[in-house]
């Protein structure tokens, strides 16, 4: 392309200004890509197929309250139900409060049924499963968590939970591999241990997680369960696990709407800033543009050169921003998964990257089009005179 160097050098005629615009573009694209990637990760979390066939039964007043273990009898009696497990968040710290990861207590055998995908039950060695079920202090650990702390089968993991003011020493009996990174960020052990050690936990569980045969049954089942316990104390609140996850997210505010509106605002900002930069560089060059046209460059050709400049600006800013976003997503996933296990899945999907790039290029073209059009329609002699 014989005009490449003309386009490139024209764009960098005012190096500082172009670099500033470029940085702004890159930063904006970076933000948009991260936010969209984050939304995608949340979305995947609340629409996964395995969690789609589960429902959560908890105390109506607060999900931090506990409910009687005996409620499970009613649940197990429902024909649509495949398996029921008990669940209690433990919140144990490993050596240091900073070592935070997901650890929870469950009814072991049913857990492996209800969460068979997440726990990678098909891949678990049978003797590991047997040891886990038999050993009262047995636990299973996700592979990526085990790798992080260097745990192996047979190791002892001491955990201290401020919630229960309880210390446990758990024997690693198996290491499981989940389908997603986030599945492997957990340590799972038996709820009996807590129930025996903590008086107010006797005969109680944090919640039930129920696996249904068909996800279509979830709404009517939730309704039936909550109706059954309507006059009991405590009352229950049942919802699909997806809805539950969504509710957890909502505790942080309505991310979706917020991030989408930030995205739109950033896109508008990109448009305005590139438009003003391009308008400025084109206006400054009105004489040069007239000279090119006098030499025989058609308005269309000059327009093409100017649009190429806008496109090049957007392309460089876009690629830079997306590159940084991919890096940042990796780093964030590593760091944040300690606190929010599902953040281990945080990445920016290729189609989001592509969409961001196409969007940025479109902004580049759009913002150049108007000033370029004006500049190339202006009579040559007028532009030459205005010296």
């Amino acid at each position, binding site marked *: 392309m014989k005009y490449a160097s003309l386009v490139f050098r024209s764009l960098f005629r005012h190096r500082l200004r172009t670099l500033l615009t470029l940085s702004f573009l890159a930063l904006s694209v970076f933000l948009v890509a991260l936010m969209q990637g984050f939304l995608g990760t949340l979305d995947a979390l609340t629409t996964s197929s395995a969690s789609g066939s589960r429902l959560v039964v908890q105390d109506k007043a607060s999900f931090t309250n506990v409910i009687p273990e005996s409620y499970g009898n009613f649940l197990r009696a429902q024909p649509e139900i495949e398996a029921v497990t008990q669940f209690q968040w433990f919140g144990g710290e490993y050596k240091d409060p900073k070592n935070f990861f997901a650890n929870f207590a469950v009814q072991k055998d049913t857990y492996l049924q209800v969460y068979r995908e997440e726990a990678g039950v098909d891949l678990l060695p049978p003797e590991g499963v047997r040891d886990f079920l038999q050993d009262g202090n047995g636990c299973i650990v996700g592979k990526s968590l085990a790798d992080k702390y260097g745990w192996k089968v047979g190791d002892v993991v001491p955990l201290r939970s401020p919630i229960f003011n309880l210390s446990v020493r758990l024997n690693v009996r198996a290491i499981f591999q989940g389908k997603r990174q986030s599945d492997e960020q957990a340590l799972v052990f038996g709820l009996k241990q807590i129930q025996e050690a903590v008086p107010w936990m006797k005969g109680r569980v944090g919640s039930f997680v129920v696996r249904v045969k068909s996800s279509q049954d979830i709404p009517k089942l939730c309704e039936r369960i909550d109706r059954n316990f309507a006059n009991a104390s405590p009352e229950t609140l049942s919802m699909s696990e997806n809805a539950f996850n969504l509710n957890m997210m909502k505790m942080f505010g309505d991310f979706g709407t917020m991030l989408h509106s930030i995205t739109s605002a950033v896109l508008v900002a990109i448009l305005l800033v590139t438009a003003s930069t391009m308008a400025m560089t084109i206006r400054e060059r009105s004489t040069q543009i007239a000279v090119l046209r006098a*030499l*025989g460059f058609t308005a269309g050709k000059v327009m093409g050169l100017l649009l190429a400049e806008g496109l090049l600006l957007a392309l460089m800013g876009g690629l830079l921003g997306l590159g940084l976003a991919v890096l940042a997503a990796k780093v964030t996933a590593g760091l944040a998964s300690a606190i929010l296990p599902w953040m281990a899945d945080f990445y920016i999907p290729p189609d989001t990257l592509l969409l961001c790039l196409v969007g940025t290029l479109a902004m580049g073209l759009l913002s150049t089009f108007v000033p370029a059009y004006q500049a190339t329609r202006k009579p040559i002699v007028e532009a030459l005179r205005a*010296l």
Partner: protein
Amino acid sequence: MSNSGNDGNAGSNGGNGGGNGGNGEPIIRLRDLAKSYYRGSLEIPVLTGIDLDIPRGGYYALMGPSGSGKTTLLNLLAGIDRPTGGELEVCGYRLNDFDDNELASWRATNVGFIFQNYNLIPVLNAYENIELPLLLTELSRAQRRERVLEALQLVNLTEQMQHFPRQLSGGQEQRVAIARAIVHDPDLIVADEPTGALDAKNAEEALNLIQHLNEELGKTIVMVTHDPKAARHAHIQIHLEKGVLDRTVEVHELPPREPLLGGRVPH
């Protein structure tokens, strides 16, 4: 008046007169050419009733007081402006009939431009500036290079070909511009006060180059100038007055002592 051959006829067809004017079909033929600007419904005539033939190979100087319409006329000849009346035929084409794109491609092959302010592209070096008109041709990179080097040699700037405009003196910049005007071998070269921004020495150099283009390469030159000295390089001087052709002066070879008398051309 020190110049002989002042025929003093307003609106005469200057090109048909002199022996210095070149031969054959005129390369520029203007008939009753007019250009007006409009401010609302108010017509502001800038050029009226211009009849002029310029022969191929002619070297014409366009003179006249400021605001008389010299630049306007030159722009019309060069096909970067459109007349509001009359006939405009240049290099064998009736420009009145062309649309913007046709005019652009006509300019690309037929016209070379030299401006008072050189108007080089600042982000391109001397070589690349000269190459610009060739980018619009089918020539290969190697062919373009050959031509650019030839043009650089003509203006004696081969050594400065990597220099950017800001690294060149005014005189050098104008020589690059002259090379750019000739590189694609157009028949017509228009120059609007090409020496207006140059000192005497550089002006002389530029004028000698332009003369060379005319005499050795056979280019038709139309040059707007205020400077009588510059105008004396031309074969014919055309004087504009308030938008009409005032008179045409044929410049003759000056006798050796003529410059001592001042060589002034009335305008």
